[in-house]
Protein backbone atom coordinates (compact mmCIF):
# COMPACT_ATOMS: atom_id res chain seq x y z
CA UNK A 1 0.00 0.00 0.00
CA UNK A 2 2.68 2.48 1.04
CA UNK A 3 4.76 1.51 -1.95
CA UNK A 4 1.82 2.08 -4.25
CA UNK A 5 1.34 5.54 -2.76
CA UNK A 6 4.83 6.60 -3.76
CA UNK A 7 4.18 5.68 -7.36
CA UNK A 8 2.86 8.32 -9.69
CA UNK A 9 0.88 7.71 -12.84
CA UNK A 10 1.18 10.52 -15.36
CA UNK A 11 -0.86 10.52 -18.54
CA UNK A 12 -1.06 12.63 -21.67
CA UNK A 13 -4.75 12.43 -22.45
CA UNK A 14 -4.39 13.91 -25.93
CA UNK A 15 -1.76 11.47 -27.08
CA UNK A 16 -3.04 8.55 -24.96
CA UNK A 17 0.33 7.74 -23.55
CA UNK A 18 1.46 7.63 -19.95
CA UNK A 19 4.05 6.45 -17.49
CA UNK A 20 4.20 4.98 -14.04
CA UNK A 21 7.17 6.22 -12.03
CA UNK A 22 8.54 6.12 -8.56
CA UNK A 23 9.35 9.59 -7.31
CA UNK A 24 12.69 10.05 -5.60
CA UNK A 25 13.97 13.30 -4.15
CA UNK A 26 15.47 14.76 -7.36
CA UNK A 27 14.62 12.33 -10.13
CA UNK A 28 12.15 9.71 -11.25
CA UNK A 29 12.51 5.97 -11.77
CA UNK A 30 10.49 4.57 -14.60
CA UNK A 31 8.36 1.59 -13.66
CA UNK A 32 6.12 1.11 -16.68
CA UNK A 33 4.93 2.89 -19.80
CA UNK A 34 1.41 2.82 -21.19
CA UNK A 35 0.57 3.31 -24.84
CA UNK A 36 -3.21 3.19 -25.15
CA UNK A 37 -3.44 4.49 -28.71
CA UNK A 38 -4.47 1.16 -30.18
CA UNK A 39 -7.37 0.57 -27.81
CA UNK A 40 -10.93 1.36 -28.76
CA UNK A 41 -12.72 4.09 -26.81
CA UNK A 42 -14.37 1.78 -24.27
CA UNK A 43 -11.22 -0.23 -23.62
CA UNK A 44 -9.24 3.00 -23.36
CA UNK A 45 -11.57 4.54 -20.77
CA UNK A 46 -11.72 1.35 -18.81
CA UNK A 47 -7.96 0.99 -18.69
CA UNK A 48 -7.38 4.64 -17.85
CA UNK A 49 -9.96 4.65 -15.04
CA UNK A 50 -8.43 1.57 -13.50
CA UNK A 51 -4.98 3.17 -13.52
CA UNK A 52 -6.25 6.42 -12.01
CA UNK A 53 -8.10 4.46 -9.37
CA UNK A 54 -4.99 2.57 -8.46
CA UNK A 55 -2.31 5.29 -8.38
CA UNK A 56 -1.74 8.91 -7.57
CA UNK A 57 -2.40 10.40 -10.95
CA UNK A 58 -1.60 13.42 -13.06
CA UNK A 59 -3.38 14.19 -16.29
CA UNK A 60 -2.59 16.63 -19.05
CA UNK A 61 -4.20 17.60 -22.34
CA UNK A 62 -3.14 19.65 -25.31
CA UNK A 63 -5.17 22.83 -25.46
CA UNK A 64 -4.39 26.14 -27.03
CA UNK A 65 -7.38 28.38 -26.71
CA UNK A 66 -6.69 29.75 -23.32
CA UNK A 67 -6.57 33.44 -22.69
CA UNK A 68 -3.30 35.18 -22.02
CA UNK A 69 -3.40 38.83 -20.94
CA UNK A 70 -1.32 41.23 -18.96
CA UNK A 71 -3.32 42.77 -16.15
CA UNK A 72 -2.36 45.30 -13.51
CA UNK A 73 -3.86 44.81 -10.06
CA UNK A 74 -3.44 46.51 -6.71
CA UNK A 75 -2.03 44.09 -4.13
CA UNK A 76 -4.81 41.67 -3.14
CA UNK A 77 -4.11 38.98 -0.60
CA UNK A 78 -7.35 37.05 -0.65
CA UNK A 79 -7.35 34.46 -3.43
CA UNK A 80 -11.10 34.55 -4.05
CA UNK A 81 -11.16 38.34 -4.29
CA UNK A 82 -8.23 38.31 -6.64
CA UNK A 83 -10.02 35.78 -8.84
CA UNK A 84 -13.14 37.90 -8.83
CA UNK A 85 -11.22 41.02 -9.87
CA UNK A 86 -9.40 39.08 -12.56
CA UNK A 87 -12.65 37.76 -13.89
CA UNK A 88 -13.99 41.29 -14.13
CA UNK A 89 -10.90 42.63 -15.82
CA UNK A 90 -10.93 39.79 -18.30
CA UNK A 91 -14.65 40.00 -18.95
CA UNK A 92 -14.05 41.21 -22.48
CA UNK A 93 -12.11 38.07 -23.28
CA UNK A 94 -13.86 35.29 -21.39
CA UNK A 95 -17.23 33.71 -21.98
CA UNK A 96 -19.68 34.58 -19.26
CA UNK A 97 -21.23 31.18 -18.75
CA UNK A 98 -17.97 29.34 -18.47
CA UNK A 99 -15.85 28.71 -15.44
CA UNK A 100 -12.17 29.48 -15.69
CA UNK A 101 -9.08 28.66 -13.76
CA UNK A 102 -6.93 31.76 -13.48
CA UNK A 103 -3.16 31.54 -13.34
CA UNK A 104 -1.79 34.96 -12.40
CA UNK A 105 1.98 35.19 -12.66
CA UNK A 106 3.38 38.38 -11.12
CA UNK A 107 5.84 40.02 -13.49
CA UNK A 108 6.72 43.43 -12.15
CA UNK A 109 5.65 46.10 -9.66
CA UNK A 110 5.02 49.61 -10.82
CA UNK A 111 3.65 52.31 -8.50
CA UNK A 112 1.87 50.06 -6.06
CA UNK A 113 0.40 47.96 -8.83
CA UNK A 114 1.38 44.47 -9.70
CA UNK A 115 1.47 43.49 -13.34
CA UNK A 116 0.36 39.94 -13.86
CA UNK A 117 0.75 37.72 -16.85
CA UNK A 118 -2.60 35.97 -16.52
CA UNK A 119 -3.64 32.70 -18.11
CA UNK A 120 -7.34 31.87 -17.98
CA UNK A 121 -8.10 28.27 -18.86
CA UNK A 122 -11.75 27.20 -19.24
CA UNK A 123 -12.54 24.40 -16.84
CA UNK A 124 -14.73 22.68 -19.40
CA UNK A 125 -11.63 20.99 -20.78
CA UNK A 126 -11.58 19.02 -17.55
CA UNK A 127 -15.32 18.56 -17.21
CA UNK A 128 -16.22 18.01 -20.88
CA UNK A 129 -13.16 16.97 -22.87
CA UNK A 130 -11.95 14.42 -20.34
CA UNK A 131 -14.42 11.59 -20.28
CA UNK A 132 -13.48 9.81 -17.07
CA UNK A 133 -15.81 9.54 -14.09
CA UNK A 134 -16.17 12.71 -12.01
CA UNK A 135 -15.13 10.91 -8.80
CA UNK A 136 -11.87 9.96 -10.48
CA UNK A 137 -11.38 13.56 -11.55
CA UNK A 138 -11.69 14.52 -7.91
CA UNK A 139 -9.02 11.97 -7.08
CA UNK A 140 -6.49 13.48 -9.51
CA UNK A 141 -3.41 15.08 -8.00
CA UNK A 142 -2.84 17.44 -10.89
CA UNK A 143 -4.43 18.40 -14.14
CA UNK A 144 -2.53 20.58 -16.60
CA UNK A 145 -1.65 21.26 -20.23
CA UNK A 146 1.12 19.86 -22.39
CA UNK A 147 2.61 23.36 -22.61
CA UNK A 148 2.87 23.56 -18.84
CA UNK A 149 4.56 20.19 -18.85
CA UNK A 150 7.41 21.65 -20.94
CA UNK A 151 7.64 24.59 -18.54
CA UNK A 152 7.97 22.04 -15.73
CA UNK A 153 11.02 20.51 -17.37
CA UNK A 154 12.63 23.88 -18.19
CA UNK A 155 12.07 25.07 -14.64
CA UNK A 156 13.34 21.84 -13.09
CA UNK A 157 16.55 21.78 -15.14
CA UNK A 158 17.45 25.44 -15.60
CA UNK A 159 15.66 27.28 -12.79
CA UNK A 160 15.78 31.04 -13.34
CA UNK A 161 17.24 30.96 -16.85
CA UNK A 162 15.21 32.20 -19.79
CA UNK A 163 14.58 28.99 -21.69
CA UNK A 164 13.25 28.76 -25.22
CA UNK A 165 11.94 25.19 -25.15
CA UNK A 166 10.99 23.45 -28.42
CA UNK A 167 9.28 20.09 -28.38
CA UNK A 168 7.85 18.03 -31.18
CA UNK A 169 6.24 14.73 -31.90
CA UNK A 170 4.57 13.30 -35.02
CA UNK A 171 1.61 15.61 -34.90
CA UNK A 172 2.64 18.87 -33.34
CA UNK A 173 5.36 21.13 -32.23
CA UNK A 174 5.13 23.06 -28.96
CA UNK A 175 7.21 26.04 -28.04
CA UNK A 176 7.33 27.48 -24.50
CA UNK A 177 9.34 30.41 -23.32
CA UNK A 178 9.76 30.57 -19.58
CA UNK A 179 11.87 31.80 -16.74
CA UNK A 180 11.50 29.71 -13.59
CA UNK A 181 7.79 29.26 -12.96
CA UNK A 182 6.96 32.21 -15.13
CA UNK A 183 5.52 31.12 -18.48
CA UNK A 184 6.16 34.02 -20.82
CA UNK A 185 4.92 32.64 -24.06
CA UNK A 186 3.68 29.42 -25.56
CA UNK A 187 2.35 28.25 -28.88
CA UNK A 188 1.38 25.01 -30.52
CA UNK A 189 2.00 24.30 -34.21
CA UNK A 190 0.13 21.43 -35.76
CA UNK A 191 2.26 19.56 -38.26
CA UNK A 192 0.81 18.48 -41.58
CA UNK A 193 0.93 14.74 -42.23
CA UNK A 194 3.01 12.90 -44.84
CA UNK A 195 5.78 15.41 -45.22
CA UNK A 196 9.22 14.77 -46.59
CA UNK A 197 11.96 15.13 -43.97
CA UNK A 198 13.26 18.09 -45.87
CA UNK A 199 9.95 19.88 -45.80
CA UNK A 200 9.54 19.08 -42.13
CA UNK A 201 12.92 20.60 -41.30
CA UNK A 202 11.90 23.75 -43.10
CA UNK A 203 8.63 23.95 -41.22
CA UNK A 204 10.47 23.42 -37.96
CA UNK A 205 13.06 26.02 -38.62
CA UNK A 206 10.64 28.55 -40.03
CA UNK A 207 8.43 28.32 -36.94
CA UNK A 208 11.34 28.39 -34.56
CA UNK A 209 12.80 31.45 -36.22
CA UNK A 210 9.50 33.34 -36.41
CA UNK A 211 8.57 32.55 -32.85
CA UNK A 212 12.00 33.50 -31.62
CA UNK A 213 11.87 36.84 -33.37
CA UNK A 214 8.40 37.52 -31.96
CA UNK A 215 9.39 36.55 -28.47
CA UNK A 216 12.51 38.64 -28.23
CA UNK A 217 10.64 41.61 -29.53
CA UNK A 218 7.50 41.25 -27.41
CA UNK A 219 7.82 38.77 -24.57
CA UNK A 220 11.40 38.27 -23.40
CA UNK A 221 14.30 40.42 -24.35
CA UNK A 222 16.91 37.96 -23.40
CA UNK A 223 16.94 34.22 -24.15
CA UNK A 224 19.64 32.28 -22.28
CA UNK A 225 19.29 29.00 -24.02
CA UNK A 226 17.40 27.03 -26.61
CA UNK A 227 16.26 23.60 -25.45
CA UNK A 228 15.17 20.79 -27.76
CA UNK A 229 13.08 17.87 -26.60
CA UNK A 230 10.97 15.06 -27.99
CA UNK A 231 11.50 14.08 -31.57
CA UNK A 232 13.33 17.31 -32.34
CA UNK A 233 16.22 16.48 -30.03
CA UNK A 234 17.17 13.82 -32.62
CA UNK A 235 17.05 16.27 -35.51
CA UNK A 236 20.64 17.46 -35.82
CA UNK A 237 19.94 19.68 -38.76
CA UNK A 238 17.37 21.80 -36.97
CA UNK A 239 19.53 22.01 -33.85
CA UNK A 240 22.54 23.12 -35.86
CA UNK A 241 20.58 25.62 -37.91
CA UNK A 242 19.08 27.11 -34.77
CA UNK A 243 22.51 27.44 -33.23
CA UNK A 244 23.97 29.05 -36.33
CA UNK A 245 21.23 31.53 -36.97
CA UNK A 246 19.89 32.39 -33.52
CA UNK A 247 23.36 32.55 -32.01
CA UNK A 248 22.29 31.23 -28.66
CA UNK A 249 23.48 28.19 -26.69
CA UNK A 250 21.45 25.12 -27.64
CA UNK A 251 20.81 22.08 -25.46
CA UNK A 252 19.11 18.71 -25.48
CA UNK A 253 17.98 17.01 -22.29
CA UNK A 254 20.31 14.58 -20.58
CA UNK A 255 17.67 11.98 -19.73
CA UNK A 256 19.39 10.77 -16.56
CA UNK A 257 18.87 14.20 -15.04
CA UNK A 258 15.10 13.57 -15.09
CA UNK A 259 14.45 9.85 -15.08
CA UNK A 260 16.32 6.63 -14.51
CA UNK A 261 15.67 3.23 -16.01
CA UNK A 262 14.41 4.69 -19.27
CA UNK A 263 15.89 4.29 -22.75
CA UNK A 264 16.34 7.14 -25.16
CA UNK A 265 13.42 6.40 -27.48
CA UNK A 266 10.92 6.07 -24.70
CA UNK A 267 12.28 9.21 -23.13
CA UNK A 268 11.79 11.23 -26.30
CA UNK A 269 8.29 9.87 -26.79
CA UNK A 270 7.15 10.37 -23.21
CA UNK A 271 8.46 13.88 -22.55
CA UNK A 272 4.98 15.28 -21.86
CA UNK A 273 3.98 12.71 -19.19
CA UNK A 274 7.44 13.04 -17.61
CA UNK A 275 7.21 16.83 -17.61
CA UNK A 276 3.73 16.65 -16.04
CA UNK A 277 5.31 15.50 -12.80
CA UNK A 278 7.42 18.68 -12.65
CA UNK A 279 4.57 21.08 -13.36
CA UNK A 280 4.47 23.69 -10.55
CA UNK A 281 1.34 23.74 -8.36
CA UNK A 282 0.48 27.17 -9.80
CA UNK A 283 -0.36 25.49 -13.09
CA UNK A 284 -2.58 22.85 -11.55
CA UNK A 285 -5.89 23.37 -13.32
CA UNK A 286 -8.00 21.38 -10.88
CA UNK A 287 -10.81 23.52 -9.41
CA UNK A 288 -10.06 24.84 -5.91
CA UNK A 289 -12.79 22.76 -4.32
CA UNK A 290 -11.16 19.55 -5.58
CA UNK A 291 -7.90 20.57 -3.97
CA UNK A 292 -9.62 21.69 -0.78
CA UNK A 293 -11.50 18.43 -0.68
CA UNK A 294 -8.19 16.61 -0.88
CA UNK A 295 -6.80 18.70 1.95
CA UNK A 296 -9.88 17.88 3.99
CA UNK A 297 -9.41 14.22 3.17
CA UNK A 298 -5.80 14.45 4.24
CA UNK A 299 -6.88 15.94 7.55
CA UNK A 300 -9.47 13.21 7.88
CA UNK A 301 -6.84 10.59 7.19
CA UNK A 302 -4.50 12.21 9.71
CA UNK A 303 -7.27 12.34 12.30
CA UNK A 304 -8.09 8.77 11.52
CA UNK A 305 -4.47 7.83 11.92
CA UNK A 306 -4.33 9.53 15.31
CA UNK A 307 -7.53 7.77 16.28
CA UNK A 308 -6.02 4.52 15.15
CA UNK A 309 -2.87 5.13 17.20
CA UNK A 310 -5.14 6.04 20.10
CA UNK A 311 -7.00 2.79 19.71
CA UNK A 312 -3.77 0.83 19.57
CA UNK A 313 -2.56 2.52 22.74
CA UNK A 314 -5.97 2.00 24.29
CA UNK A 315 -5.92 -1.69 23.46
CA UNK A 316 -2.38 -2.00 24.76
CA UNK A 317 -3.28 -0.12 27.92
CA UNK A 318 -6.39 -2.23 28.40
CA UNK A 319 -4.37 -5.36 27.85
CA UNK A 320 -1.71 -4.39 30.37
CA UNK A 321 -4.38 -3.26 32.84
CA UNK A 322 -6.12 -6.56 32.39
CA UNK A 323 -2.86 -8.38 33.05
CA UNK A 324 -2.43 -6.22 36.11
CA UNK A 325 -5.87 -7.17 37.30
CA UNK A 326 -5.10 -10.82 36.83
CA UNK A 327 -1.89 -10.42 38.79
CA UNK A 328 -3.72 -8.59 41.53
CA UNK A 329 -6.42 -11.24 41.58
CA UNK A 330 -3.85 -13.95 41.98
CA UNK A 331 -2.19 -11.95 44.78
CA UNK A 332 -5.57 -11.56 46.43
CA UNK A 333 -6.22 -15.24 46.06
CA UNK A 334 -2.82 -16.13 47.46
CA UNK A 335 -3.20 -13.80 50.42
CA UNK A 336 -6.62 -15.16 51.10
CA UNK A 337 -5.31 -18.71 51.01
CA UNK A 338 -2.37 -17.89 53.24
CA UNK A 339 -4.47 -16.20 55.87
CA UNK A 340 -7.01 -19.02 55.74
CA UNK A 341 -4.24 -21.57 56.21
CA UNK A 342 -2.74 -19.58 59.04
CA UNK A 343 -6.07 -19.39 60.82
CA UNK A 344 -6.64 -23.08 60.28
CA UNK A 345 -3.19 -23.93 61.54
CA UNK A 346 -3.59 -21.74 64.58
CA UNK A 347 -7.01 -23.24 65.27
CA UNK A 348 -5.54 -26.72 65.25
CA UNK A 349 -2.54 -25.83 67.37
CA UNK A 350 -4.45 -23.81 69.98
CA UNK A 351 -5.23 -25.67 73.17
CA UNK A 352 -8.49 -24.03 74.15
CA UNK A 353 -11.87 -24.49 72.62
CA UNK A 354 -14.16 -21.58 72.03
CA UNK A 355 -16.17 -22.29 75.24
CA UNK A 356 -12.94 -22.34 77.21
CA UNK A 357 -11.94 -19.03 75.72
CA UNK A 358 -15.32 -17.63 76.64
CA UNK A 359 -14.88 -18.86 80.21
CA UNK A 360 -11.39 -17.42 80.54
CA UNK A 361 -12.39 -14.13 79.00
CA UNK A 362 -15.15 -13.73 81.59
CA UNK A 363 -12.94 -14.91 84.38
CA UNK A 364 -10.17 -12.46 83.55
CA UNK A 365 -12.55 -9.60 83.13
CA UNK A 366 -13.82 -10.18 86.66
CA UNK A 367 -10.27 -10.55 87.96
CA UNK A 368 -9.14 -7.36 86.32
CA UNK A 369 -12.20 -5.58 87.72
CA UNK A 370 -11.49 -6.65 91.25
CA UNK A 371 -7.84 -5.75 90.83
CA UNK A 372 -8.46 -2.33 89.45
CA UNK A 373 -11.24 -1.69 91.85
CA UNK A 374 -9.57 -3.23 94.80
CA UNK A 375 -10.47 -2.19 98.32
CA UNK A 376 -6.95 -2.87 99.39
CA UNK A 377 -5.65 -0.43 96.82
CA UNK A 378 -8.00 2.29 98.08
CA UNK A 379 -6.82 1.72 101.61
CA UNK A 380 -3.23 1.97 100.44
CA UNK A 381 -4.02 5.24 98.75
CA UNK A 382 -5.08 6.86 102.02
CA UNK A 383 -2.71 4.94 104.24
CA UNK A 384 -0.35 7.89 104.76
CA UNK A 385 -3.21 10.07 105.91
CA UNK A 386 -4.65 7.79 108.52
CA UNK A 387 -1.51 6.15 109.87
CA UNK A 388 -0.81 7.32 113.39
CA UNK A 389 -4.35 8.63 113.88
CA UNK A 390 -7.09 7.28 115.97
CA UNK A 391 -9.61 5.96 113.45
CA UNK A 392 -13.19 6.44 114.44
CA UNK A 393 -14.73 5.31 111.22
CA UNK A 394 -13.45 4.23 107.84
CA UNK A 395 -15.94 3.17 105.19
CA UNK A 396 -15.39 2.10 101.60
CA UNK A 397 -18.46 1.45 99.57
CA UNK A 398 -18.63 0.37 95.96
CA UNK A 399 -21.76 0.48 93.97
CA UNK A 400 -22.51 0.80 90.27
CA UNK A 401 -19.00 1.95 89.45
CA UNK A 402 -19.00 4.64 92.12
CA UNK A 403 -16.61 4.48 95.05
CA UNK A 404 -17.27 6.42 98.18
CA UNK A 405 -14.65 6.69 100.90
CA UNK A 406 -15.50 8.19 104.27
CA UNK A 407 -12.84 8.84 106.87
CA UNK A 408 -13.36 10.02 110.42
CA UNK A 409 -10.17 10.11 112.51
CA UNK A 410 -8.63 12.12 115.31
CA UNK A 411 -5.09 13.09 116.33
CA UNK A 412 -3.82 14.84 119.41
CA UNK A 413 -0.51 16.77 119.45
CA UNK A 414 1.83 17.68 122.28
CA UNK A 415 3.46 20.62 120.54
CA UNK A 416 2.46 23.21 118.02
CA UNK A 417 5.21 22.33 115.64
CA UNK A 418 3.97 18.78 115.06
CA UNK A 419 0.42 20.08 114.87
CA UNK A 420 1.28 22.54 112.10
CA UNK A 421 3.40 20.00 110.26
CA UNK A 422 0.56 17.49 110.29
CA UNK A 423 -1.91 20.14 109.23
CA UNK A 424 0.25 20.98 106.24
CA UNK A 425 0.62 17.31 105.51
CA UNK A 426 -3.15 16.85 105.44
CA UNK A 427 -3.65 19.88 103.23
CA UNK A 428 -1.02 18.69 100.75
CA UNK A 429 -2.51 15.24 100.77
CA UNK A 430 -6.02 16.45 100.13
CA UNK A 431 -4.72 18.64 97.32
CA UNK A 432 -3.02 15.61 95.81
CA UNK A 433 -6.14 13.45 96.08
CA UNK A 434 -8.30 16.13 94.52
CA UNK A 435 -6.90 15.31 91.12
CA UNK A 436 -8.62 11.88 91.24
CA UNK A 437 -11.44 12.34 93.72
CA UNK A 438 -14.34 14.58 94.42
CA UNK A 439 -13.63 15.69 97.98
CA UNK A 440 -15.83 16.95 100.75
CA UNK A 441 -13.42 18.13 103.39
CA UNK A 442 -14.81 19.00 106.83
CA UNK A 443 -11.59 18.49 108.74
CA UNK A 444 -11.25 20.66 111.83
CA UNK A 445 -8.06 22.00 113.36
CA UNK A 446 -8.32 22.92 117.01
CA UNK A 447 -5.36 25.12 117.96
CA UNK A 448 -6.31 25.41 121.60
CA UNK A 449 -6.38 21.70 122.18
CA UNK A 450 -3.77 20.99 119.52
CA UNK A 451 -6.23 18.48 118.08
CA UNK A 452 -7.07 17.62 114.48
CA UNK A 453 -10.33 15.92 113.59
CA UNK A 454 -10.20 14.48 110.11
CA UNK A 455 -13.59 14.36 108.44
CA UNK A 456 -13.20 13.55 104.74
CA UNK A 457 -15.57 12.20 102.20
CA UNK A 458 -14.09 11.13 98.84
CA UNK A 459 -16.05 10.09 95.80
CA UNK A 460 -14.99 8.78 92.42
CA UNK A 461 -17.01 7.55 89.48
CA UNK A 462 -14.81 4.92 87.90
CA UNK A 463 -17.27 3.94 85.19
CA UNK A 464 -16.07 0.37 85.66
CA UNK A 465 -18.87 -2.10 86.32
CA UNK A 466 -18.90 -5.80 86.68
Amino acid at each position, binding site marked *: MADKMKKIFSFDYSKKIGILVKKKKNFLVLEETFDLRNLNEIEFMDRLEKLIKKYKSILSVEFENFINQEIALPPIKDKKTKEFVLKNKLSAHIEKNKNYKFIPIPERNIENKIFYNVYAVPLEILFKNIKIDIELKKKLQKFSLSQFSLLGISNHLFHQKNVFHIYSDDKSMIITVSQGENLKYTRVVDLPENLEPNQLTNIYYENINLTYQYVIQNKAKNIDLILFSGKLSENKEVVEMSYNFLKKPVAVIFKESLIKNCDKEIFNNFIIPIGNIFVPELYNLLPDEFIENKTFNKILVAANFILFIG*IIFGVYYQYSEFNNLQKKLSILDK*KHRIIKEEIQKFKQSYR*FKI*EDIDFYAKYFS*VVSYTKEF*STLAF*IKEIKNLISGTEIQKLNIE*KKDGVVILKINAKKQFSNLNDFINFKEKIKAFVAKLSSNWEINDRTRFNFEKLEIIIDLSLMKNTGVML
Partner: protein
Amino acid sequence: MRYLLYILQIVFLAFLIIGFFAVSEVNKEINSKISKINQEKIEFEEVKEKLLSLEKQVQKLKIKPVNKQEALNLIINKANFFLKTQNAKVVEDIKDQNQTLSITMMINIPINSKKQVEKLLKNLNNSKYPIIEIENFEIKSGETKTFLKIIFKLIQIYKV
Protein backbone atom coordinates in the same frame (compact mmCIF):
# COMPACT_ATOMS: atom_id res chain seq x y z
CA MET B 1 -16.54 2.40 2.84
CA ARG B 2 -14.01 4.71 4.45
CA TYR B 3 -16.69 6.42 6.52
CA LEU B 4 -17.93 3.03 7.67
CA LEU B 5 -14.39 2.38 8.85
CA TYR B 6 -14.36 5.68 10.76
CA ILE B 7 -17.64 4.82 12.40
CA LEU B 8 -16.34 1.38 13.32
CA GLN B 9 -13.25 2.98 14.81
CA ILE B 10 -15.32 5.37 16.87
CA VAL B 11 -17.53 2.54 18.08
CA PHE B 12 -14.44 0.58 18.96
CA LEU B 13 -13.04 3.58 20.78
CA ALA B 14 -16.29 3.93 22.69
CA PHE B 15 -16.04 0.30 23.73
CA LEU B 16 -12.47 0.92 24.80
CA ILE B 17 -13.55 3.84 26.94
CA ILE B 18 -16.33 1.79 28.52
CA GLY B 19 -13.79 -0.98 29.04
CA PHE B 20 -11.43 1.48 30.62
CA PHE B 21 -14.04 2.51 33.16
CA ALA B 22 -15.01 -1.09 33.78
CA VAL B 23 -11.41 -2.10 34.38
CA SER B 24 -10.80 0.83 36.70
CA GLU B 25 -13.96 -0.08 38.62
CA VAL B 26 -12.88 -3.70 38.99
CA ASN B 27 -9.44 -2.47 39.92
CA LYS B 28 -10.90 -0.35 42.70
CA GLU B 29 -12.91 -3.30 43.93
CA ILE B 30 -9.88 -5.57 43.99
CA ASN B 31 -7.79 -2.93 45.74
CA SER B 32 -10.40 -2.55 48.46
CA LYS B 33 -10.55 -6.34 48.84
CA ILE B 34 -6.79 -6.49 49.15
CA SER B 35 -6.72 -3.79 51.79
CA LYS B 36 -9.58 -5.54 53.60
CA ILE B 37 -7.70 -8.80 53.61
CA ASN B 38 -4.60 -7.01 54.89
CA GLN B 39 -6.71 -5.52 57.66
CA GLU B 40 -8.09 -8.94 58.47
CA LYS B 41 -4.60 -10.31 58.64
CA ILE B 42 -3.62 -7.61 61.13
CA GLU B 43 -6.74 -8.31 63.17
CA PHE B 44 -6.01 -12.00 63.11
CA GLU B 45 -2.49 -11.33 64.37
CA GLU B 46 -3.90 -9.25 67.20
CA VAL B 47 -6.41 -11.91 68.19
CA LYS B 48 -3.71 -14.53 67.94
CA GLU B 49 -1.48 -12.46 70.20
CA LYS B 50 -4.27 -12.10 72.74
CA LEU B 51 -5.14 -15.76 72.64
CA LEU B 52 -1.51 -16.73 73.13
CA SER B 53 -1.15 -14.38 76.07
CA LEU B 54 -4.37 -15.84 77.48
CA GLU B 55 -2.87 -19.29 77.17
CA LYS B 56 0.23 -18.13 79.01
CA GLN B 57 -1.75 -16.48 81.79
CA VAL B 58 -3.91 -19.52 82.25
CA GLN B 59 -0.81 -21.66 82.51
CA LYS B 60 0.67 -19.30 85.04
CA LEU B 61 -2.44 -19.22 87.21
CA LYS B 62 -3.05 -22.94 86.82
CA ILE B 63 -6.79 -22.57 86.45
CA LYS B 64 -9.13 -24.54 84.30
CA PRO B 65 -12.76 -24.17 83.31
CA VAL B 66 -15.37 -25.62 85.64
CA ASN B 67 -18.94 -26.65 84.93
CA LYS B 68 -21.92 -25.33 86.78
CA GLN B 69 -21.96 -28.09 89.39
CA GLU B 70 -18.31 -27.69 90.13
CA ALA B 71 -18.79 -23.94 90.33
CA LEU B 72 -21.60 -24.38 92.81
CA ASN B 73 -19.44 -26.69 94.93
CA LEU B 74 -16.59 -24.21 94.89
CA ILE B 75 -18.84 -21.37 95.99
CA ILE B 76 -20.54 -23.37 98.72
CA ASN B 77 -17.22 -24.62 100.07
CA LYS B 78 -15.83 -21.14 100.23
CA ALA B 79 -18.98 -19.77 101.81
CA ASN B 80 -18.87 -22.53 104.38
CA PHE B 81 -15.31 -21.66 105.15
CA PHE B 82 -16.26 -18.06 105.93
CA LEU B 83 -19.31 -19.16 107.88
CA LYS B 84 -17.13 -21.34 110.05
CA THR B 85 -13.98 -19.32 110.47
CA GLN B 86 -15.16 -15.74 110.34
CA ASN B 87 -18.62 -16.00 111.73
CA ALA B 88 -19.90 -14.71 108.42
CA LYS B 89 -23.51 -14.43 107.38
CA VAL B 90 -25.18 -14.85 104.01
CA VAL B 91 -26.66 -11.54 102.97
CA GLU B 92 -27.92 -12.51 99.57
CA ASP B 93 -28.76 -15.96 98.24
CA ILE B 94 -26.93 -17.68 95.40
CA LYS B 95 -27.60 -15.98 92.09
CA ASP B 96 -27.10 -17.49 88.66
CA GLN B 97 -26.65 -14.89 86.03
CA ASN B 98 -24.77 -14.80 82.76
CA GLN B 99 -22.67 -17.94 83.33
CA THR B 100 -21.82 -16.64 86.74
CA LEU B 101 -22.77 -17.90 90.20
CA SER B 102 -22.52 -15.45 93.06
CA ILE B 103 -23.36 -15.21 96.71
CA THR B 104 -23.08 -12.14 98.96
CA MET B 105 -21.83 -12.49 102.52
CA MET B 106 -21.03 -10.28 105.41
CA ILE B 107 -18.42 -10.42 108.14
CA ASN B 108 -18.79 -8.28 111.22
CA ILE B 109 -16.10 -8.91 113.78
CA PRO B 110 -14.17 -7.01 116.46
CA ILE B 111 -10.63 -6.15 115.48
CA ASN B 112 -7.92 -7.46 117.72
CA SER B 113 -4.96 -6.36 115.69
CA LYS B 114 -4.07 -4.56 112.54
CA LYS B 115 -2.52 -7.78 111.26
CA GLN B 116 -5.82 -9.57 111.55
CA VAL B 117 -7.41 -7.07 109.19
CA GLU B 118 -4.53 -7.26 106.72
CA LYS B 119 -4.61 -11.05 106.72
CA LEU B 120 -8.33 -11.18 106.12
CA LEU B 121 -8.14 -8.65 103.32
CA LYS B 122 -5.30 -10.55 101.64
CA ASN B 123 -7.23 -13.77 102.01
CA LEU B 124 -10.23 -12.24 100.30
CA ASN B 125 -8.12 -10.61 97.64
CA ASN B 126 -6.10 -13.67 96.75
CA SER B 127 -8.98 -16.04 96.31
CA LYS B 128 -9.03 -17.22 92.69
CA TYR B 129 -11.76 -19.90 92.73
CA PRO B 130 -14.13 -18.22 93.42
CA ILE B 131 -13.06 -14.60 93.01
CA ILE B 132 -14.04 -12.37 95.89
CA GLU B 133 -15.23 -8.84 95.34
CA ILE B 134 -15.49 -6.54 98.35
CA GLU B 135 -18.54 -4.30 98.12
CA ASN B 136 -18.39 -2.54 101.41
CA PHE B 137 -15.60 -2.19 103.89
CA GLU B 138 -15.95 -0.48 107.21
CA ILE B 139 -13.85 0.05 110.32
CA LYS B 140 -15.73 1.61 113.20
CA SER B 141 -14.51 2.15 116.73
CA GLY B 142 -17.03 1.53 119.44
CA GLU B 143 -16.72 2.37 123.11
CA THR B 144 -14.49 -0.52 123.97
CA LYS B 145 -13.68 -2.25 120.73
CA THR B 146 -13.15 -1.45 117.08
CA PHE B 147 -15.29 -3.39 114.66
CA LEU B 148 -14.62 -4.52 111.12
CA LYS B 149 -17.56 -5.00 108.78
CA ILE B 150 -17.05 -6.36 105.25
CA ILE B 151 -19.76 -7.14 102.72
CA PHE B 152 -18.33 -9.26 99.92
CA LYS B 153 -19.42 -11.32 97.00
CA LEU B 154 -18.12 -14.73 95.99
CA ILE B 155 -18.12 -14.95 92.23
CA GLN B 156 -17.57 -18.12 90.23
CA ILE B 157 -17.72 -18.27 86.42
CA TYR B 158 -18.68 -21.58 84.86
CA LYS B 159 -18.46 -23.09 81.42
CA VAL B 160 -21.62 -23.88 79.51
